[in-house]
């Protein structure tokens, strides 16, 4: 008995850190969401669930959710889908090992660049007068397609989504490469003997073998899509006309532009509930299949 009680002492510091830096802020945030308060004023007024009813009545909330969902959809298709295809292609020995290493590094490099630097770079690429995209369109005689990619409400969110796909596809590709490399080569040898071609090997051997990594990558990508902030804040600020608002910028706007920390806290709670629910459902669905 003494021995097991003594063991708990080793856990207490780590438990304390988790409680202090993870659970306490969550609980504190939920508490603050029940008040009307600003960051610089000492007074706060209890208003119950008024912040939550306000969120669900606000059209901008639904615009934000829609943008996050769009981001998640494209990210799963591009980062996870295309990243996996790239990994399979690079590991499939279709190119020599030197070229394989070169492509692996080149595709991975964007993911280590800071988001602010990437956003600034993308801002210049999309600039309507001096940007690369419009410059190429002009040279190609496609002047009718020239637009302010980040200032046009129809294209702005897609321009930001494209930026993220460019940045993170390589990262997911590297994760999938690790998973593909772990597949025993004997499985492929047996498949070759049975007459399987590359496509059938991919469908029946590669994809089932890397399923767990696919699940993890999808969860990371979807959770990341709902935590989106810096990409939007640096490029469009949520504009034009609030067309690129996402939950992160919606929350930031409420808390720091409008000085409504209580409302901002309520939005944070909603983001937490959404991402937690998505994670639990995904893990339950995919682990249930096993």
């Amino acid at each position, binding site marked *: 008995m003494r021995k097991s009680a003594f063991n708990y002492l080793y856990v207490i510091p780590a438990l304390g850190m988790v409680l202090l830096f993870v659970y306490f802020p969550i609980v504190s945030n939920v508490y603050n969401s029940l008040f009307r308060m*600003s*960051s*610089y*004023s*000492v007074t706060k007024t209890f208003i119950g669930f008024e912040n939550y009813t306000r969120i669900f009545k606000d059209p901008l909330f639904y615009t934000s959710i829609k943008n996050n969902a769009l981001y998640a959809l494209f990210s799963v298709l591009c980062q996870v889908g295309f990243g996996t295809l790239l990994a399979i292609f690079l590991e499939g020995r279709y190119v020599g090992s030197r070229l394989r290493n070169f492509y692996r590094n080149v595709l991975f490099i964007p993911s280590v660049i800071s988001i602010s630097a990437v956003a600034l770079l993308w801002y210049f690429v999309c*600039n*309507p*007068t*001096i940007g690369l995209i419009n410059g190429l369109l002009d040279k190609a005689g496609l002047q009718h397609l020239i*637009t*302010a*990619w*980040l*200032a*046009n409400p129809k294209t702005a969110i897609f321009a930001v989504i494209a930026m993220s796909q460019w940045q993170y596809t390589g990262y997911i590709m590297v994760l999938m490469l690790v998973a593909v490399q772990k597949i025993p080569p004997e499985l492929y040898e047996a498949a070759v003997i049975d007459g399987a071609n590359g496509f059938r090997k991919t469908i029946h051997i590669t994809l089932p073998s890397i399923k767990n990594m696919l699940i993890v990558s999808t969860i990371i990508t979807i959770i990341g899509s709902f935590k989106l902030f810096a990409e939007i804040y640096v490029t469009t600020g949520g*504009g*034009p*006309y*609030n067309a690129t608002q996402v939950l992160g910028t919606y929350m930031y*706007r409420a808390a*720091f*532009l*409008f*000085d409504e920390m209580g409302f901002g806290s309520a939005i944070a709670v909603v983001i937490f509930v959404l991402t937690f629910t998505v994670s639990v459902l995904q893990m339950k669905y995919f682990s249930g299949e096993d």
Partner: protein
Amino acid sequence: MKRKLTWVLLLSLLLCAVAFSASVELKFLHRWTQEPDSLFFDEVARDFEQLYPNIKVNVQSIANDPFKEKIKVLLGTSDAPDVFFTWPGEFTNRFIRADRVLDLTPYLLRDGSLWNYVGSQVEPFVYQGKIYGLPYRLDAKVFVYNKELFQKAGITKAPVTFAELIDACKKLKAAKINQIAFGNEGTWAVSHYIGAINQKSLPEDVWLKDLDPAQGVWTHPGYVESLKIYSQLVPYFNPFANGIKHDQARIEFMAGKFAIMYLEIVEIPEILREAPTGFGEKIGVFVFPDTKGPGDPDYLVGYPEGFVVSADTKYPEEAVAFLKYLTGREAGRKEIEQLGFFNGYRNVVGPDEVLPIIYETTSLILNSKRMVNWLDSDLHAKIWDVYSVQLQMLTDLVATPENVMKEIQNIATEVRKEF
């Protein structure tokens, strides 16, 4: 015994020296992270410390955009700066209402130092009859134009009326010269246009009342007229105005690609530093032309920027002393020499001591009947949020003046409920 006494005395003296050597430390926060401005503030702090050896000034800076959010958070903590930068108007007033800013009135009246400042530049820092800040940098918005391009287009004088401005734009267009450089990606740029036009298009008591979030209704038909006036300028802006930053538009103006740009006076020293050699001689200025509305044509859009003292400062006397030094004569002279800006202190320099264009533009401020605050600083944050989106849509020609004002009226109704 004697030796022991000597040691005790020496120790006491040492302890006293330590106690008094840096007995006060002031936290000073401003928004200029780049040189030469950041160097200027460091020097002013060091100069002040030499005058007051028992005061140490800890200078900190945060860049412009993040400053607007971080200061709100800092003021809610025990780590608030003692002296900090601010924009007068609603930006500061909300802090005053939350008792975060020190009332400077008794400090300025008891030694008469208030009368050393230009009254029109202290007035923006007055709230409900009390003075809460002092001006650091005078500023106003003027049209800066390229005289060479004007001559090429056959325009012989700077426009005085709005009709003359439109006429000038037409002549520039006919001469195949780009007319007005405008970068509104940050949305604050359009607020300077609308603020000027609103002031000229409406009776003063109407727009002043509507600026008050507790009372503003925004129903006067002059607001729609104001937006129609603004819409007349839109065809003469560069394409994709909402997709270009103000800085990029200014670079293109300095490169001689545009004839006119609506700029802050404080940008003129930067233009003189950064533009190609000889550009300074090519430029002239004119104020926002008279729109022939009910507003006073001699008002000027622009407000000083300044500094205030935190209400929670542990050292109010020292903080106010530093504030007065920062906005006073010696710092003012250094400010003109190093940065080209005027502070609000009277008679800091004579006309022979600065470049003619700097003196000319500053005289516009000092001689104007009244200053009109930047609209985005003066409005309640929620009203400006809607206003800025609607103005972007108007600039893109996807909204009408009538619809814009309907949206403003709706948000104003919601905001009034908060008071």
